[in-house]
């Protein structure tokens, strides 16, 4: 499956455009993400951060350009392969996307059931991930009865429970207080340490400052790579 020449780049975008009926959300984006890289995507509201992530897991098709995930060209992937592509990813959606008719436990277990794991394994795994986000007592609650931050922690738990190759985290701490946010960010860094490729879309300055890794800056759908790096590097050394 892996393309030899680019073995170290798990994600490659070549001149990717994303156009909606009324306007462009992404214009000519070319980015490579190395295996086990930690990439941060930032930019103002509506810049295209979420859209960029969406293209990677085929939440939407790109309008133009090529996207390679682990050597697979997304433009040419067969419909039947899409679920398997998506299992490479663990995604924290900006709006959580928890299934309202399933309990917290069921929402998280779903990811493992989908891949056909044994139920005894699923039980252990879900319990452990719920413990790490401090939500084990609420496992039988439905998402609507959780606070915003609790939902976000469940979204995190679901994203990581399958030990994915790539974690896409869209504003993963937007609803969390500083302490909870730190816990989540530390967990993400831990996964990164274990070899997971990590892409975090955020505009939280604190996270950008505190997290080691490359940052790309989107503005109005365009990549403004260099400017950000200059702006940020000193922030880290502060």
């Amino acid at each position, binding site marked *: 499956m892996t393309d030899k020449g680019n073995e170290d780049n798990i994600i490659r975008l070549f001149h990717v455009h994303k156009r909606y009926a009324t306007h462009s959300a992404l214009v000519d984006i070319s980015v490579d993400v190395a295996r086990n890289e930690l990439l941060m995507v930032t930019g103002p509201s509506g810049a295209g951060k979420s859209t960029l992530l969406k293209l990677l897991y085929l939440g939407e098709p790109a309008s133009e350009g090529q996207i390679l995930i682990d050597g697979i060209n997304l433009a040419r992937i067969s419909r039947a392969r899409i*679920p398997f592509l998506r299992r490479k990813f663990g995604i924290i959606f900006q709006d959580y*996307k928890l299934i*309202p008719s399933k309990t917290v436990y069921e929402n998280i277990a779903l990811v493992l059931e989908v891949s056909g794991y044994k139920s005894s394994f699923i039980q252990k795994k879900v319990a452990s991930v719920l413990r790490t986000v401090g939500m084990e007592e609420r496992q039988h609650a439905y998402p609507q009865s959780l606070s915003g931050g609790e939902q976000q922690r469940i979204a995190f738990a679901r994203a990581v429970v399958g030990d994915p190759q790539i974690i896409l985290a869209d504003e993963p701490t937007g609803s969390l207080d500083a302490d909870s946010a730190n816990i989540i960010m530390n967990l993400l860094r831990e996964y990164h340490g274990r070899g997971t490729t990590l892409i975090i879309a955020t505009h939280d300055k604190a996270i950008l400052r505190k997290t080691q890794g490359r940052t790309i800056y989107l503005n109005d759908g365009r990549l403004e790579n260099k400017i950000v790096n200059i702006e940020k590097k000193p922030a880290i050394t502060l």
Partner: protein
Amino acid sequence: MKSGIFLFFIKRAVQDILNNRFLNAITIITIALSILIVSAFGLFFVNINDLLDSWRKGVRIIAYLNNKVSQTEILDVKKKILQIDGVAAAQFKSKDEALKQLKERMKRQAAIFENLRENPLPDIFEVQLSATAQNWEKVEILASQIETLPEIESVEYGQQWIGRITGIFNLLRFTGSALCAVFFMASVFIVANTIRLLFFSKREEFDIMQLVGATEGFIKTPFYIEAILQGIIGGILGIIVLYISYVVVVSNVDQGLSSAFIQIRFLPIPVTLLIIACSTFSGWLGCYLSFKQFLNT
């Protein structure tokens, strides 16, 4: 392994039904109601058909023998008549018998017969027709076939009566079948539409499941099971309600109908099973249409 997965899917389907009790109750009730409609009409139609059949059984051809036929030839004539295609039975009735019956039938005008010196009536055969021959055209053809026999003077059959009955038969059969078809299709669509409305509220769930890497089979199977279960449960419920109504109606009506010659019967088991099968199919169809619409990512 495979059966384990299937069990898992059934568990998920049942759980989903229980989780969405209100919606599923409404769906099942709707399905039961439309099955009730179809099967109630089916029951009505089956019994009307029985009634018409029992009337039609009364259609017979009277063949008048000419005077020259002797007592010994009668068996020959009977054989000849029975050989004709479409004849089910032929019963000989002597002229004396015929007169007796006539007198009985015309009690009021009995005075007519008091002055008779000899019996002016001919011997006759009452010819009964086989089921397939019981329509007007066939009866006419049969009658003329019988009439060509040398021993037969003439034939008589309730031309006008049969004409009437046949016309009404055809009309009833035609419109009844048409109605059955319409009701059936309507029910299939009602069931399918109900399932579609039900699953419309699941769009989000379908989407999310796709996003976490569920294959289409994984998503669809439990919902197919759910839809099929609903079809079966709704169908059985509809039939049960019909059966209960049937029992109530029959026990109330049969007294008032003691003089009637027909017996109201319930739908035959195979038809009942067919109706439930169709209900199940409708559930499946609704599910199929829903997925066709919602899963195009």
